[in-house]
Every structure is written in structure tokens, then in C-alpha cells.
């Protein structure tokens, strides 16, 4: 009987556990998490923090779910190290757990700003359901906010402030939100979205230090220009540090995350990784890449489990990831790797509609759609087909995209 151990009960770990049980009915499966609750919907916790969604619908599994599938679930259990020679996982206070095959699905932890008073009361980071509960409670009574981190997670704090009636300043280091993927025209649509919910974007700013009162509560953020922004609530989302400390000395190759091939195998036999923390070989991009999205993490967990159960390179991970922002009147969708590639095409259609497509070697590798999502499935299809289309960008920038207008693919 094979013993599978999965570290992490996020969507990648949980999806792997479910697939392993389907693929290997007799195996022993253990899922270890340092959180106090089983899998919940991490992409809905922002709705709870906004004060809009009750707790119950955010839960995905209860403990019976694991029991029904004969999966051992260890809650509140922190893995401290892995002995890859002895094939044993060491935990903080639940002893040792032996494995034949191990999946590392431990995701990341939000990075703290390296500035004075960044751990003051009232300064929030956002990753767990517990974080969301704390944010909701505090946001309910806060009046003035500061947000730091001009990316996909920072904007969730802007939405929380908007929904909870907190007037906020969104301090950005550059001249626009998500400058790596959006031009000024695209970003301005998002800035208008922020303003519409009472959040003011502040450019060429950031945080030099926070000020606190005698009780250690945040009272202001001071930016590198010396400008002072009063606040009793702050949200910081400047990036993730991947949870891999427990792998120190285990010989697993890392490069800002765990390096895996398309089968989710690390360089160490019988150790796999899945989810946010992987640096995986992206077969569509032809390079190493990283995804930070729910759908991708779920699929990586499934693919890892298929290969673990087969003890073979049975199925490769091939996926076009997408990530939406749903806080404004208009939709926003980022797909693939919009910040990668060697050329791009973009167009603005109206005050709320903009499109950008990123190409590498003439093939689409990602993009951003604001306002009009109608071409998303066509672009994803072209990505999967790896069609060379950069020379026909005009067709792709038509408001209504018709793939029949593309010249037939040439035999390579």
C-alpha cells in the first residue's frame, strides 16, 4: 500500500488528495495543514472582508469530507522539515509522518513591507480566512485607509475599503496600477474604477514608514516624498514569499519557488510540488513560469496526483490560467502571462474597454481584457494551438474578433 503525504490543504493539495483517492483506492493518504480549518474558497474571502458574503458559503470541505474518503487530515500541524533519505516528514508537535510519495503544496505568505512599524496594529496582510475575518471586523469601524501594492491582490484591499465606506489613498510606486501589464490607457480605466468606490490612487509614492500612536496602532503612512497619509486601516499586498523553509537541506531545487517539470516532479525522486509555489515548465510558453491563480493551482494538484499514482510521467500540465477582478461595474480578465513576451498589441475602445495581447515568437502568451471579455475563449484557443498570429494583430484587435479572418496556418 502506497503512503501519500500532501503538505497543504489549499486548492492544489485538496485537489491532489481527491484525485489520488480516485486513482488509488487502497492507498494511505494524509493531508497536513497548519491552518485550523479544512479547504475553503480562498478567492471568495475578499467578499467576506468586504462585508458582503457570510462565512458559510466560503467553506468547501468539512472534516467529514476527508473521513468519507478515508483521507487523514491533520489540522493545525506545521511541517518543520523533510528527511528525503528516510522519507519522513517532521511536524511541530504531531511527530513524524512517513511517506512513499510526497506533494508539497504549501503556497505562499504575504511579504511584509521592510519599513518602520510595518507590523503595527491596523496594518493588514491578506491570505487566510482568519485574515479576512480580522480585516472585515476592523474595516467595519475604520474611517481612513492606506493601501500599498499596485497589483492584483492590492486592488482587493481597495475594494474592501470601497465596500466598507473607508476613504482610502492607494499609494503606488510607479505612475500607474499594475504597470508591468497595463499601459497608461488601460490603467486609467482601473484608476477610475478605484475612484468610483472612494479610493484615490496616488502615483510615484509608496511607504517610507508608518506612524503609530502610544498603543502601537497605525495612524499614518509617510511616503518617500515626505507626504503624510493619515489612516486607521492599512492594507499591504506587495508580494508573496513561498512557504519552503521546511525544505532547507532537502536538496530540492528552488528558484523563487520550487522548480518542477510539466509533470510536477521536483529534482528529488518521489517529491512533487503543485500550486502557487511552483516554478513549472510551461509547455505553451516554452519556459519556466509561475501562476498565482485558483484554476491553475487546482489543475496542478490534479496533474501531480495523476503522475504520483501512476508512478510515471502520465500527464503533463498544460493550462491557460486566468484571473478576474470583479469589484467594478466593468469586468477585468488577465490570462496567460501578460507580463511576458517580446512584443504586444493593445487598443482602447471606450472609457471602460481596453485590450492588450502579449506575444512571444509570434504566438499569444497572455493578455488583459478590460470591459469586453468576448474574445477571451478565442485568444485562449490560439494560445493552446500555439498559432503564430502576431503579424495579424489587427484582426485580434477588432472589437469583434473573427478567427476565420486570420490567414490559414502555414505548414512549418
Amino acid at each position, binding site marked *: 500500500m502506497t503512503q501519500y503525504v500532501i503538505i497543504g490543504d489549499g486548492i492544489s493539495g485538496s485537489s491532489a488528495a481527491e484525485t489520488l483517492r480516485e486513482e488509488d483506492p487502497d492507498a494511505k493518504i494524509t493531508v497536513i495543514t497548519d491552518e485550523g480549518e479544512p479547504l475553503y474558497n480562498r478567492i471568495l474571502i475578499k467578499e467576506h472582508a468586504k462585508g458582503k458574503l457570510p462565512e458559510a458559503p466560503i*467553506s468547501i470541505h468539512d472534516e467529514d469530507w476527508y473521513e468519507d474518503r478515508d483521507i487523514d487530515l491533520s489540522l493545525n500541524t506545521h511541517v518543520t522539515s523533510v528527511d528525503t533519505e528516510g522519507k519522513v516528514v517532521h511536524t511541530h508537535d504531531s511527530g513524524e509522518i512517513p511517506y512513499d510519495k510526497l506533494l508539497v503544496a504549501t503556497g505562499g505568505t504575504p511579504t511584509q513591507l521592510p519599513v518602520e512599524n510595518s507590523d503595527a496594529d491596523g496594518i493588514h496582510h491578506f491570505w487566510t480566512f482568519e485574515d479576512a475575518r480580522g480585516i472585515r471586523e476592523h474595516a467595519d469601524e475604520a474611517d481612513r485607509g492606506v493601501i500599498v501594492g499596485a497589483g492584483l491582490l492590492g486592488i482587493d484591499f481597495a475594494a474592501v475599503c470601497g465596500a466598507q465606506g473607508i476613504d482610502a489613498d492607494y499609494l503606488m510606486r510607479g505612475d500607474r496600477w499594475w504597470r508591468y501589464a497595463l499601459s497608461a490607457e488601460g490603467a486609467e480605466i482601473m484608476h477610475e474604477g478605484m475612484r468610483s468606490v472612494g479610493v484615490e490612487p496616488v502615483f510615484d509614492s509608496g511607504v517610507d514608514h508608518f506612524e503609530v500612536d502610544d498603543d502601537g496602532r497605525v495612524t499614518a503612512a509617510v511616503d518617500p516624498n515626505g507626504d503624510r497619509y493619515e489612516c486607521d486601516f492599512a492594507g499591504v499586498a506587495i508580494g508573496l514569499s513561498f512557504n519552503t523553509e521546511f525544505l532547507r537541506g532537502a536538496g530540492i531545487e528552488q528558484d523563487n519557488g520550487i522548480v518542477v517539470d510539466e509533470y510536477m516532479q521536483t529534482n528529488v525522486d518521489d517529491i512533487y510540488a503543485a500550486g502557487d509555489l511552483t516554478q513549472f515548465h510551461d509547455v505553451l510558453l516554452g519556459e519556466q513560469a509561475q501562476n498565482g491563480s485558483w484554476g491553475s493551482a487546482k489543475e496542478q494538484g490534479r496533474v501531480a496526483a495523476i503522475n504520483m499514482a501512476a508512478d510515471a510521467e502520465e500527464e503533463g500540465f498544460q493550462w491557460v490560467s486566468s*484571473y*478576474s477582478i470583479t469589484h467594478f461595474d466593468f469586468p477585468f480578465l488577465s490570462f496567460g502571462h501578460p507580463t511576458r513576451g517580446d512584443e504586444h498589441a493593445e487598443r482602447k475602445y471606450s472609457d471602460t474597454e481596453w485590450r492588450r495581447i502579449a506575444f512571444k515568437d509570434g504566438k499569444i502568451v497572455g493578455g488583459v481584457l478590460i470591459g469586453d471579455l468576448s474574445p477571451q475563449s478565442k485568444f485562449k484557443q490560439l494560445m493552446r494551438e500555439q498559432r503564430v498570429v502576431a503579424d495579424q494583430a489587427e484582426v485580434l484587435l477588432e472589437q469583434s474578433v473573427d478567427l476565420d479572418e486570420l490567414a490559414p496556418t502555414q505548414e512549418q
Partner: protein
Amino acid sequence: MNMATSELQSRSVRPESAAVRLERVPSVPADATVRHVDQFETETLDAIYRAVTEDRPVSAAETDLEPGEVIVFTDYFRVERV
């Protein structure tokens, strides 16, 4: 709670003719099943987008939408059988 349904559960089989539409709802009861739009595959996302922007029913057979559940998109939308 939504524990009976699995994240991996495949779509249920419905008659070809069944259609659903999306009804904007102001709030969500505690016993509702709720999914974020990023939990859906490309085809269902297309259908959600069409249903919302064109305000018309979409075929349930082509999608992964479950009548009664709430979808978090640019607003909260309940999936209603037509």
C-alpha cells in the same frame, strides 16, 4: 455549507434544451452555494459574460452552471432555470 459538492465534481448531465439565466441579487443567504467566476472553465465564463451583458438565457448543457447557485462576477448573480 457547500461540503457535499466537490471542487472536482464534473458537471451534471442536463437535457440539451434546458436554459438558465442570471438574476442579479443584492445579498446572499448563509446556505447558498457560491462560486467565483474564476472557478469556471473558459466556455462557462463565455456563457456567464453573454448572459450578463446581453441579458439573455444561455444553454445549461454547454455550461457548468447549477440552478440556484450564486456567481460572483461584476455583481452577485443567481442562476435561475428558465
